[in-house]
């Protein structure tokens, strides 16, 4: 699986800026580019829609509702679909330098690890479902996205722990086509489920970190070693934030092509939710001294 002989450790870290999802997504790509050993990151976002690399935000997002609810919009560098993140989501990202896995095998490896982690919590009916989902009782509890280059593999995803599903349904546009192979409960389509719903109790996100890390390390035959952020990763993330993730050219890519279909009010809302606020910019200013 790997061409590189590491120390046998999976570097695990919590690196999160929940109030600035633009920077969180910049750090995600920074880890993909900068990690020098197998690295597993855990992080959370607060109130943001994260769209896939090849999605048009105008087709995926109810921008007016998102603006009303204070929900931001950011594009990630990997493919896949739009997701809503709040503090009830646990996000994970695995970078494997030196590994040569195709996209399907990468999803399987991480999907099976997430399923193992959930089984260790006493959940039985949990399965990795190709291409990029983990389901409990046929309902999605975790979705993944991936990218790879010649010398590395990257898989990230989010686990619904106690997310606000009503906001999720309000801010995401969901087409009839998308629901065509999903399960219906009464008159309402039921597509996703949270860990709290499955267990019938509240779940603390920090309690899951060790379980998830051990499950991923187990699949890779590595030992977990908890670590901190490196300054080179922060520096790369700051560059990516300034040049890409804080910019409308990135977050609203593909919108110009469909401009005729979007009214001015919606366009204004899209611009607003896809731009970091002053408070969010301040958070990034606080990061800068760590790399200077």
């Amino acid at each position: 699986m790997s061409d590189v002989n590491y120390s046998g450790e999976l570097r695990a870290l919590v690196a999160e800026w929940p109030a600035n999802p633009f920077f969180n997504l910049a750090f995600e790509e920074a880890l993909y580019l900068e990690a020098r050993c197998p690295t597993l990151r855990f992080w959370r976002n607060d109130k943001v829609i994260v769209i896939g690399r090849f999605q048009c935000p105008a087709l995926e997002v109810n921008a007016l509702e998102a603006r009303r609810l204070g929900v931001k919009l950011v594009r990630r560098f990997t493919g896949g679909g739009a997701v809503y993140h709040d503090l009830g989501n646990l996000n994970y990202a695995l970078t494997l330098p030196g590994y040569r896995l195709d996209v399907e095998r990468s999803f399987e490896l991480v999907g099976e690890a997430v399923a193992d982690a959930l089984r260790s919590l006493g959940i039985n009916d949990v399965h990795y479902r190709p291409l990029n989902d983990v389901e409990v009782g046929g309902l999605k509890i975790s979705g993944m996205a991936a990218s790879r280059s010649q010398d590395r593999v990257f898989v990230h995803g989010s686990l619904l722990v106690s997310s606000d599903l009503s906001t999720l349904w309000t801010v995401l546009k969901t087409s009839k086509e998308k629901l065509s192979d999903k399960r219906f409960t009464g008159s309402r389509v039921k597509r996703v489920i949270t860990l709290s719903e499955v267990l019938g109790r509240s779940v603390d996100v920090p309690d899951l970190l060790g379980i998830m890390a051990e499950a991923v390390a187990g699949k890779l035959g590595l030992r977990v070693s908890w670590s901190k952020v490196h300054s080179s990763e922060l520096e790369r993330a700051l560059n990516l934030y300034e040049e890409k993730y804080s910019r409308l050219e990135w977050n609203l890519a593909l919108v110009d092509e469909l401009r005729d279909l979007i009214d001015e009010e919606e366009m204004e809302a899209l611009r607003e939710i896809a731009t970091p606020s002053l408070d969010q910019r301040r958070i990034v200013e606080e990061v800068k001294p760590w790399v200077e």
Partner: protein
Amino acid sequence: MCGEKKHAGGKLVKVCLKTQRDLVKGVFITGDFFVEPEEKFIELTYLLSVLETPIRNVADEVARILEGEKLLRIYGVTIEDVKEAIHTAVRGI
């Protein structure tokens, strides 16, 4: 006008067409699929955005272009799904 197609158990592709009279003057493919290599898909996206062809031919023309991209792999949707999404978009014009 836009159309979409969900591959059973797979991903969703959305296709929007820019038209003028009976001509398509740009095709835009988006969705929650995965592609490899991404650079190839981005090149293809540009090519399709300036594609000019009669509306009646657009599905076959896009399929022909996709079939010609031997190095491009799209995970989760097929060329047939893209064609179906285009047919839906054309019906809405």
